[in-house]
């Protein structure tokens, strides 16, 4: 993906979606096993439905959060930085769903030699139901400026632009 620059960003515009799925029980099992997460609602259908009264086993919130992080890291590119991310697990997602991580620019501000972009983000299923609403802050390079320094130190945003 080509580097996105602060000047390319328009308030109200969407960033590229990140689509995962359709999610299967195998996807859920693969993540649970990799993370050694033994919460029964992710693999024990009888427990999930009979004991916890859920419609099915559910996609791990811990998995969903990394999809949101990936959305931002992909968009920021190696010249930018996905600085902050906040979200709530509001709704469950089930096997069979296709999940789309999305973002929309709420505001942008030039700070020092860089640009700071505020985004509304979420993870919705194919019916358009939003289950993980949140917002994020991404730091982008400016077209005539340097890449965002790595490791990221927020103090770079307070340093004056070099003329």
């Amino acid at each position, binding site marked *: 993906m080509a580097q996105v620059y602060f000047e390319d960003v328009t308030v109200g515009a969407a960033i590229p979606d990140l689509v995962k799925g359709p999610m299967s029980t195998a996807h859920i099992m693969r993540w649970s096993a990799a993370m050694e997460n*033994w919460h029964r609602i992710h693999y024990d259908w009888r427990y999930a439905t009979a004991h916890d009264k859920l419609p099915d086993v559910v996609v791990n919130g811990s*998995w969903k959060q*990394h*999809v949101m992080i990936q959305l931002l890291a992909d968009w920021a590119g190696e010249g930018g930085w996905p600085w902050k991310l906040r979200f709530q697990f509001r709704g469950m997602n089930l096997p069979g769903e296709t999940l789309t991580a999305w973002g929309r620019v709420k505001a942008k501000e030039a700070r020092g030699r860089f640009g700071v972009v505020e985004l509304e983000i979420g993870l919705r299923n194919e019916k358009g139901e939003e289950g993980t609403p949140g917002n994020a802050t991404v730091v982008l390079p400016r077209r005539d400026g340097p890449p965002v320094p790595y*490791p990221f130190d927020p103090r770079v945003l307070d340093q004056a632009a070099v003329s």
Partner: protein
Amino acid sequence: MALDYITAEVKALIGVESARLEATHPVEASEVRRFFQATMDPAPRYWDAARAGRGRYGALVAPLGFPVHAFRRPPERADPLDAMGEADFDGRERTLRAGLPAVPVPLPRLLNGGYEYEFFRHARVGERIFRKSRYRDIYQRDGKSGAMVFLVIEDVYTNEAGEPLLKSVNTMILR
């Protein structure tokens, strides 16, 4: 009126901090691989050593959220699956963070309410990860379905040099 679960004993946990504890083992390439394959995130910085070495990371790195899952069960800790024969056991341990005492609230269901993250750098493959945790707040809300107790946990993750990797604020919900 629901029962008040925020007893003096629970209230005393607000502000309690853990020691700075080390993850179970250094970041392993195989664990990173299983992570990025399970999240279907094919970025070369996780697997293409030559390219990662030339880029801004200088070496293979783990996905940004990887440290959150690096605190695996150490060999000396009891096997949580020993309790799977109990019909009501949900598979989760109630010690939410190593080094923080469990919160004595007798509500059966544990839900993850969400996270706030602030990222500074990736953990590198081979690096040691450390975490310091703190109960920022513990409070109760009474809804239609009964009482819910919110546990707000701050975590600061660093590498062995003390360089910050990420900070998080996680809200866990007991109901």
